[in-house]
């Protein structure tokens, strides 16, 4: 009997103890409609120094699981079962004093949105300093220490920067400050909740690289939460896939990507944009027609293959206010030219501030160009009178990024889709209703959703409504400004497929504005890469992806999470 016990202890010491272990963790939320389980039977183990990623879509419980480990569940949430073992200590039984002791010093956190996670009224240095003070780690020369911590996180000119407020920082710099705060007390575990999803890809890559170096130096274990499977596989040793509050699969990262077992993981792998390498071919055009879509110059489309939009030397200059001396000019768009052939998709790619959205606004005629021309089907947009403009609006329609912000919350779905028809005086009440039904059918929404309001729909459903609204007037061109950026990967894939199907069916032309090269790969025939207002590279999607000519394009391509993984599994 006693011998057995000795053996067990020996085994325990020879095997390193896990740093964090979640055993059958269950979390419920108390809502007005009763208790809602958010996480059920979640199991997870992180060894010291190891990086583990939780992957899942929004609402899968991945953030909730991680927040529970640091005692930060929202007020109405609670751990309703299971155990959270941190270095052998059960945190579900620890009192709040003990939790406060662990926070910062033993478990650090890097939150998701750098814009909202720094207190706007305190200087950056102050927010780092109070972290050190609260954990009794402040040295006598605390200002020097703060600068060191910030510099370690890759913030240039840290001593000066520490005296600035968050609003004087860019998104990437704020995220560095948050990483500095999270790691300032050299915690043993860092919870990184989507640490870079709000940032441009190239910045994202720098920050993740830096984070990896720092945590490796400190020997910090990382619990990385992300919706991006490619990113998870690239950065973590182990991946845990969560779906609807359950862990559906876990194991070594590459193994899961190569050989996903659970159907959800299989779908996730198949639709992960960062891993896709092919343009989506519409199911309906999979046969002969697909050749036309991919190579519109082939002659098969003849008369229809003309340039429907021609942008020539487009320039937009904004006057900046409040600059010292004479008002400085800001060239948002600088001598941009491109053509879009009818029935094809052109993607304009760039990081925030590259001027891509300004181009979209000018093509939509929502913004007047400072110079240059936009020729739409032979008509110069800069010289349209009121009536011609009204007709133009009918032929060119937008789909915007945020499906939560672009639908009027007071309009039901029927009214939203019917409004453009009414405005343009098309049909009578009865025929309009028939048209709305047809449109809903085209975007695969049930006719019963007509009487519902936007807040009753999910993000993906709302974006379908936005697509239906855009199509109501039978436009020739649809301009998608980051139309899928706000959506989860699976929903994103559905919408992209829908757009591809509609293109094949209706012969639509798309101008696709996006920062996400992975999406470009799936939807575009031609690509324009923009940097600081200029087009730096243009060509067919294959050309740009397979043989990028510009260093900037290569940097963008490299920065796609998972781009360095060579493992495209053959998932049908």
């Amino acid at each position, binding site marked *: 009997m006693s011998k057995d016990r000795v053996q067990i202890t020996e085994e325990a010491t020879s095997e390193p103890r896990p740093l964090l272990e979640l055993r059958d963790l269950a979390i419920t939320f108390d809502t007005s409609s009763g208790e809602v389980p958010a996480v059920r039977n979640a199991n997870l183990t992180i060894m010291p120094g190891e990086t583990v990623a939780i992957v899942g879509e929004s609402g899968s419980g991945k953030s909730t699981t991680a927040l529970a480990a640091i005692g930060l569940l929202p007020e109405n949430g609670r751990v309703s079962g299971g155990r959270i073992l941190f270095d052998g200590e059960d945190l579900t039984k620890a009192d709040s004093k003990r939790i406060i002791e662990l926070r910062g010093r033993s478990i650090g956190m890097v939150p998701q949105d750098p814009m909202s996670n720094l207190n706007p009224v305190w200087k950056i240095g102050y927010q780092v300093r109070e972290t050190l003070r609260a954990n009794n780690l402040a040295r006598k020369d605390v200002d020097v220490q703060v600068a060191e911590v910030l510099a370690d996180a890759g913030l240039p000119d840290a001593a000066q920067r520490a005296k600035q407020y968050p*609003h004087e920082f860019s998104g990437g710099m704020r995220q560095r400050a948050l990483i500095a*705060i999270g790691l300032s007390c050299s915690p043993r575990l860092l919870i990184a909740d989507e640490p870079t999803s709000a940032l441009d890809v190239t910045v994202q890559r720098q920050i993740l690289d830096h984070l990896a170096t720092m945590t490796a130096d400190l020997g910090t274990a990382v619990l990385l939460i992300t919706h991006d499977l490619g990113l998870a596989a690239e950065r973590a040793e182990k991946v845990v896939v969560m779906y609807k509050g359950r862990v559906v699969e876990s194991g070594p990262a590459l193994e899961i990507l190569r050989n996903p077992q659970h159907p959800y993981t299989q779908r996730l792998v198949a639709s992960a944009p960062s891993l896709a390498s092919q343009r989506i071919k519409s199911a309906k055009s999979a046969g002969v027609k697909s050749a036309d879509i991919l190579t519109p110059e082939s002659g098969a489309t003849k008369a229809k293959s003309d340039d429907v939009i021609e942008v020539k030397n487009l320039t937009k200059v904004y006057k900046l206010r409040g600059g010292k001396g004479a008002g400085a000019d800001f060239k948002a768009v600088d001598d941009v030219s491109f053509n879009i052939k009818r029935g094809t998709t052109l993607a304009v790619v760039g990081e925030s501030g590259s001027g891509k959205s300004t181009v979209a606004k000018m093509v939509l005629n929502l913004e007047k160009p400072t110079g240059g021309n936009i020729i739409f089907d032979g008509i110069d947009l800069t010289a349209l009178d009121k009536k011609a403009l009204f007709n133009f609006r009918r032929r060119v329609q937008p789909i915007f990024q945020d499906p939560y912000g672009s639908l009027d919350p007071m309009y039901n779905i029927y009214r939203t889709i019917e409004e453009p028809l009414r405005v343009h005086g098309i049909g009578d009440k009865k025929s309009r209703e028939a048209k709305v039904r047809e449109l809903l059918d085209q975007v695969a929404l049930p006719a019963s959703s007509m009487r519902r309001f936007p807040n009753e729909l999910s993000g993906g459903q709302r974006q379908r409504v936005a697509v239906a609204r855009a199509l109501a007037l039978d436009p020739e061109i649809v301009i998608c400004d980051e139309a899928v950026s706000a959506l989860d990967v699976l929903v994103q894939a559905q919408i992209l497929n829908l757009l591809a199907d509609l293109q094949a069916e209706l012969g639509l032309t798309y101008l696709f504005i996006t920062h996400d090269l992975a999406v470009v790969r799936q939807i575009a025939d031609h690509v324009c890469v923009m940097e600081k207002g200029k087009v730096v590279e243009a060509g067919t999607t294959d050309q740009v992806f397979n043989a990028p000519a510009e260093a900037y394009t290569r940097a963008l391509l490299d920065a796609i999470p998972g781009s360095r993984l060579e493992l495209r599994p053959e998932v049908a």
Partner: protein
Amino acid sequence: MLRFILRRVLQVIPVFVGSTLLVYFLVFSMAGNPIDALSGGKPISPAVVAQLTAQYHLDQPFIVQYGIFIKNLFTFNLGTSFSGRPIAAIIGQAFPVTARLAIMALAIEAIFGVTAGVIAGLRKGKLFDGTVLLASLVVIAIPTFVLGFLLQFVVGVKLGWAKPTVSSGADWGDLILPAVVLGLVSFAYVLRLTRTSILENMNADYVRTATAKGLSRPRVIMVHILRNSLIPVVTFLGADLGGLMGGAIVTEGIFNVPGVGNTLYRAVLSGEGPMVVSIVSILVLVFVLANLLVDLLYAWLDPRIRYA
């Protein structure tokens, strides 16, 4: 910062000119002859009428009268009231009383309003929260003159805890009851504003991040919730100070406070143009300065708008 203040001070000029011009015009076009009002309808000799008309420049066109008024205002020569006392002396007597009353009322609403609001916000849905919310609603719903007479009768006359009316000296002790009445309505607004603001900030991402950093609960509340929550409250209090300094006609009337509100009310009744416009001009200045103070406080509390 300096540019910000300078620009704001320069903005006072058009506001001041515009508002005094408007008030002067309104008083100028008031029905009735001020000399009739002065004489109380009794017949007076044409010589006296002519003399008074010349003294108050009543025969001059509007814009000339306004010009003379502005000139006098800046040379502190406000003229005399119809009763023969210098207007400057009357205002000099009434303003300190109103200022005292306003400061007391502001202190009451700020201290009690913010404290109760913070506690209610932190204990949302608990007994304290529900009680003060209901009480503040009752206070807001009752008109000032009802509340004023009620407190005057109960606290002043029946219980005798405070003087029901104000003596001519109007010292601090005399003004407690009117100050409570005056501050009570704003107290209810301050309470609700603070509570809402606290609730909003409690769920902010940066508060969660502050907690994750290992800060103690009191520190999170004091440093990260309170300061951010007080920004709208301070704005309200500053604007309210401007309003309180303008004198509260109803409250000052109930308690017979010899303040600005009372004086202004009597001047309007007797059609004393110069007096009304003089008081209003000073009120405009006070109001504009109070708002400037608010903006400076605001910029100090919220660094994002410092150079805006």
